[in-house]
């Protein structure tokens, strides 16, 4: 790697502020990218990595702050303007037209006449030059995820970009493909271009990056040369803990260890019977990607078990398997007859927004119900839930849509807990709620635990998981490991920085 000569940086973002409604997504975020380097942009979910790069790519206008390109202040008004300036971005969710061929996708957005043969030849030329294998005539919907990503990159290269922003590029790739991509990124930067690599995988960042910037709650909290930093330093920057000497190396111990830890750390845990369990469960999704591999986990009666993971680790599939909402492709699952489930996206997966509250209560178990519905008792049950879980509403005939987010969540939680299920599976139960609603959701989960329910909870906020859980598992890349109840250990394992 050639250390960049002291030119003006290729791109610099200074004190960028971006406001979404009343919340600050970016709060004085800064980033400076030198030509010829790979710059890793790190941060946990919601830290503002993608938002900052969308500002650089012209998709979002900054509320405040300046963008400089080779030292000169610029206004990036649109992605088209960004491409004209030589800035390209490959989004985490690809922006390809699946019914079109690779060549057509690459040509998309250009002006003038379309010559199929010339377009295909150009794709051939670029992909050969860049060393990215790609068939220009293949239709995008027939391509593997890796090939689609190469198509996105070639699309950017066709515009002669100098700076390529890649948003979580390795998240969707198999390990061998990911390694290849990282090598390609290195070569691309060595050829004088620059790459911003958005990631939450520390290993990727340290393997390929020259420089590292960490965002936390929309703020730049650390910028360093990759060679001068460590896993531990980056992890504590990301999760905001004061740097503590990192000396914890293993996550999963022997069974004996595990029992010891559990009893030592969580006096609240009763010696309950196993209620929920997965043994060697795997899930392969519709694309053929294995998102949960050989995962084992159990939850006893009367305990809250937390699962911590970064986005895309397979936690949602794992939760659905244990809630009995998804059949594993392999492995064994033990479930009680009745499992309550509070999914992360309540609007999509839990509520009939235009239905009344009693209709939403009637929804639970509707799949197995026979004969007539007794609306009288359903209405009474709804009124009971509304009282017990303090759902603020004008009445049981109000629509779910008319409730605030916190009250919707209390309604869903109340519905799932009303029949005292043996087990309850919850995902990010306090997402989008205010302080008071969070407190009452936590109280409800603890009360359920104390009443003997086996509670399994996934949270993207590590602190919430640790605060609620009696025992903790960590998911990374589809694998499940039991962890000690320790912030550092959990944080590191989430990022795959441990024995995995």
């Amino acid at each position, binding site marked *: 790697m050639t250390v960049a000569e002291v030119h003006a940086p290729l791109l610099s973002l200074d004190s960028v502020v971006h406001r979404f409604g009343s919340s600050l997504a970016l709060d004085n975020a800064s980033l400076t990218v030198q030509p010829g380097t790979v710059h890793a942009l790190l941060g946990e979910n919601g830290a503002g990595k993608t938002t900052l790069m969308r500002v650089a790519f012209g998709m979002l206008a900054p509320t405040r702050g300046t963008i400089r390109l080779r030292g000169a202040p610029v206004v990036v008004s649109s992605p088209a303007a960004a491409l004209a300036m030589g800035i390209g971005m490959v989004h985490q969710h690809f922006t390809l037209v699946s019914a079109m061929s690779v060549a057509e996708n690459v040509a998309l957005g250009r002006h003038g006449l379309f010559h199929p043969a010339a377009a295909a030849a150009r794709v051939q030329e670029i992909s050969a030059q860049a060393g990215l294998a790609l068939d220009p005539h293949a239709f995008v919907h027939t391509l593997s995820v890796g090939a689609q990503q190469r198509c996105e990159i070639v699309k950017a290269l066709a515009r002669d970009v100098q700076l390529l922003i890649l948003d979580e590029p390795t998240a969707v790739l198999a390990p061998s493909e990911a390694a290849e991509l990282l090598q390609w990124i290195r070569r691309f930067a060595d050829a004088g271009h620059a790459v911003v690599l958005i990631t939450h995988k520390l290993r990727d960042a340290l393997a390929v990056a020259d420089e590292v910037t960490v965002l936390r709650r929309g703020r730049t909290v650390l910028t360093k040369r990759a060679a001068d930093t460590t896993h531990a330093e980056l992890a504590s920057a990301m999760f905001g803990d004061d740097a503590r000497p990192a000396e914890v190396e293993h996550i999963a111990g022997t069974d004996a260890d595990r029992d010891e830890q559990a009893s030592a750390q969580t006096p609240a845990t009763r010696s309950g019977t196993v209620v929920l369990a997965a043994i060697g469960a795997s899930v392969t999704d519709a694309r053929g990607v294995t998102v949960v591999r050989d995962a084992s986990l159990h939850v006893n009666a009367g305990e809250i078990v937390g699962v911590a993971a970064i986005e895309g680790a397979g936690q949602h599939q794992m939760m659905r398997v244990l809630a*009995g*909402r998804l059949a594993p492709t392999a492995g064994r699952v033990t479930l009680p007859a009745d499992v309550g*489930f509070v*999914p992360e996206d309540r609007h*999509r*997966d*839990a*509520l*009939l*927004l*235009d*239905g*009344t509250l009693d*209709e939403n209560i*009637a*929804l*639970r*178990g*509707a*799949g*197995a*119900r*026979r*004969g*007539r*519905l007794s*609306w009288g008792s359903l209405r009474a049950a709804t009124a009971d839930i509304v009282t017990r879980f303090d759902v603020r509403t*004008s*009445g049981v*005939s*109000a*629509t779910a*849509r*008319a409730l*605030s987010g916190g009250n919707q969540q209390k309604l*869903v939680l109340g*519905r799932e807990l009303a029949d005292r299920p043996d087990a309850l599976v919850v995902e990010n139960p306090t997402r989008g709620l205010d302080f008071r609603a969070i407190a009452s959701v936590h109280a409800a989960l603890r009360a359920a635990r104390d009443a003997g329910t086996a509670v399994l909870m996934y949270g993207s906020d590590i602190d919430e998981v640790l605060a609620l859980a009696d025992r903790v598992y960590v998911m990374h890349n589809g694998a499940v490991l039991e962890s000690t109840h320790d912030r550092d250990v959990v944080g590191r394992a989430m990022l795959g920085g441990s024995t995995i």
Partner: protein
Amino acid sequence: MTSDGASVRTQAEVSSGRRSLATMLLAVARVAILAGLTITLLIVLLLVTGHDAGAALSALARGAFGSWYAITSATLVRMVPLGLAGLAVVVAFRAGILNIGAEGQLLMGASAAGAVFAVLGATNAVLALPLMLLCGMLAGGAWAAIAAFLRQRFGVLEVISTIMLNFVALSLMGWLVRGPLQEPTHIAPQSTSLPVSLHLPTLLPNSQLHVGALVLVMLAIALWWWFRSTASGFRVRAVGANAAAAASAGQINVARTTATAFVLSGALAGLAGSVEYTGVTYALYDSFSPGYGYTAIAVALLAGLHPLGVLATALLFGALEAGASAMQRDAGVPSVVVSVVEASLILAVVAAQQWQSRAVTRAEASA
């Protein structure tokens, strides 16, 4: 459209708190507004096209309600197929299925009833009539099942497949009345007329109103009760309102529920066809249905996808269609004017629902 219809009702329920009374008042208001809107649109259209609005309207009213014959043998007789097919559309749309194929399912229902007669001949009515209606339902359901299968297995949009199947059904019927089901002299492209013994019994003296009207009213009530009071009806509504939540929170088998509702919808449209055949036309021919299956979509939407509302809107459309021919005959106003009014009504109602749901969204955003 389904959720719009649902939100219209539920919003009103919230504000009043006494839901049954509010729903009823709203339904009455809705019908009154529709009727008023229809007459206003007609007058405007007649004035714009330079016709004598007074003469035309009175001809229309005479044709629809002016006599015992007009009421029972024109308006109410047309209301039956519109209402049955309208119920078919309600069931599908409530389940989130955009079944545009009631027309084709209706034609297949009629054809199946015709085939039963061709096989059995003039036999015992007590045996043959129920069999004809049953086979009509089965055929309509089977025709819908094709689209249901294509949707489930290959993700084919039912809007496309059901429209296409309408044309296939129309051609199939055209072939039947020129081939296997053609009358014995092989002159006219139509089937042998049913003997009087196999006509659906009439309901009232001196009229052509047949027992199909009774079937319509009973089915409307039954469906209303089914949606409201049974677990399976609730499942259909839940899947139509939010399939993801129905699967996740309700653990409802969405694929099975959708397929069931789709086939039920087709069966109701098939019944409309076989009732029309045994109660009104007594024969199959090319122009068997003047687009009842398409008008049924308007009937269902204007009823807010409510089974009982269908009775009111089917009556309105039945009267309009009965009056249209009288208007053409007596006042020289082309009957297509009524088609324009029907289409304008749909546009007005859809626009009003959009406006209402936006208002709700705005109210939420500012809350």
